[in-house]
């Protein structure tokens, strides 16, 4: 598989704090790659850098060979690198369906004036968005909540909605920020199936996660951060056996790695 993302020498300083220090790795097309590390290791900053919500102090992120660092987030999203958010960032006062419909924005062929005057292209767009929205909602098992206000959704389904919003943009790379946080065993199992399903749709998945068993279960490869630096990279098997990871990140608590 060719590389879809190339992260090279990525460094981000906030004043005196170095959140990310000289991080380099590549992401292959259609793989599931997890970024793990203790709290404050710089995982979230790395995600913001990749989605270009913040600009790096030095280094760069390339998507299919093209530099995306420094571009506005909506432009990066337009190119196909889309970020979902930690916790419950959704459009709260819209229905589930409206949340997903609005997220189809990037697929519009009509421009704003077209939507204002309701041109034929705009109507075709709307019909296509509605069809695709229903498909995505069913795919994520949100069918029963279609017309529910997003703020009324149960916790686990909120994350599914977050992924639905991400999928609606038709991404090539989807960045999932802690998709399994706060889930019980059964919910996690379902969420893992969903993430696998997302990959089956041809999407490359990058995720930041604390739930080690889930990460070990789902990832093709794992990148480990500690104090803003990359300390390891490899398959789940390699990471579990890596002495630096065990020492720096997990100490003696082997079971946290799912061994």
């Amino acid at each position, binding site marked *: 598989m060719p590389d879809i993302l190339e992260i090279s020498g990525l460094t981000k300083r906030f004043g005196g704090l170095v959140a990310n220090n000289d991080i380099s790795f590549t992401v292959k097309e259609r793989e599931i790659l997890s970024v793990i590390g203790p709290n404050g290791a710089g995982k979230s900053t790395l995600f913001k850098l990749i989605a270009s919500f913040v600009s790096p102090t030095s280094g760069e992120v390339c998507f299919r060979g093209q530099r995306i660092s420094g571009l506005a987030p*909506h432009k990066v*999203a337009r190119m196909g690198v889309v970020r979902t958010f930690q916790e419950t960032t*959704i459009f709260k006062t819209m229905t589930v369906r409206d949340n997903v419909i609005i997220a189809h924005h990037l697929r519009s062929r009509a421009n704003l004036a077209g939507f204002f005057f309701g041109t034929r292209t*705009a109507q075709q767009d709307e019909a296509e968005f509605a069809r695709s929205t229903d498909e995505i909602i069913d795919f994520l098992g949100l069918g029963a909540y279609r017309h529910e206000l997003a703020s009324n959704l149960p916790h686990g389904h909120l994350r599914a909605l977050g992924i639905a919003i991400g999928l609606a943009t038709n991404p090539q790379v989807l960045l999932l920020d802690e998709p399994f946080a706060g889930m019980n065993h059964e919910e996690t199992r379902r969420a893992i199936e969903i993430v696998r399903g997302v990959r089956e749709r041809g999407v490359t998945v990058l995720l930041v996660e604390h739930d080690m068993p889930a990460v070990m279960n789902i990832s093709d490869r794992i990148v480990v951060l500690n104090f803003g630096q990359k300390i390891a990279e490899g398959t789940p098997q390699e990471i579990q056996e890596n002495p630096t990871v065990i020492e720096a990140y997990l100490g003696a608590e082997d079971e946290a790695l799912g061994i």
Partner: protein
Amino acid sequence: MTTQQKIASAFAFLAVLLVGVPLLISATGRSDLYYTLTSVALLSIISAGVWLTFYIGRINIGQGAFALMGGYVSAILVTQYGVSFWLTLPIAGLLCAAASVLIGLPILRLRGVYFAMVTLTLSEVARLTALAVPITNGAKGIVNIPLPSRLTIFGITLIPDFATLANPRLAFYVTSVLLMALCYLALYRLVNSRIGRICQSLQQNEELASSIGVNISYIRILAFAISSFLGGIGGAMFAAITQSMYPSSFGVADSINFMLNCFLGGLGYVLGPMLGTFVLYFGWDLLFQTGVFQLLIYSSILIILMLVLPNGLLSIRLPRQKQS
């Protein structure tokens, strides 16, 4: 309501305003009501702009600045350059929109109370500028603005010269109501098209909006420009009706009133600012008999209304809709 029902009720509403009200006024002889209702129509156009900035999640207390600017643009063009008023109307709107793009580029990055404070300052800056700049004639203002002249296209007279009319007040009333209808029609279409959803997405979470590919700075500028356009044409119409323009014509208090109109009518409803303007304007007049207590009673009612109906007057009908 189905689309047909909506169109039918819109036409019925217009018929009441354009036929019913003039008949009623001629029957009762209260022709002063023309001026009052014209003001309500124009103020609701200006407030509609403020409502749109609310819709993208910004509290705009700067609309007075654009109404003032629009008024002056029209007044200066008509009195000093002899331009037809009907041409100055769109020019005033467009110049205000252009100015708002320049002003909006830096300030629309601000959110919440910070944006509100800067726009509040804008209202005051506009007044002080009008006082200081020579072209606006300082505190003496621009007076004796001629009434709107004839508007002809290809030799056909669309609008007669207002000065030759027997009842220019009726003419202004009809013009303002039609303009209001047009503005609200456009706003309704805007809000109910995809653009409205995009604006709403901004209002709720700008980060998420940009992550789904919405160019948030463009949408913010667009909404602010439309808002200022409405402020500008409203101000220009006022200049034509009062035939005068002073630095004090639109001030901070007016900007706050525009905002209150939106609050009172309901921030979630396109017709909110129209209803809000009507109720506030007439409410204030009705309380006139209470003399020194006018402001006290008025403010107390406003506070109570906002506590009891935080989503505005139009939210009253919602529960009923759900039952049916």
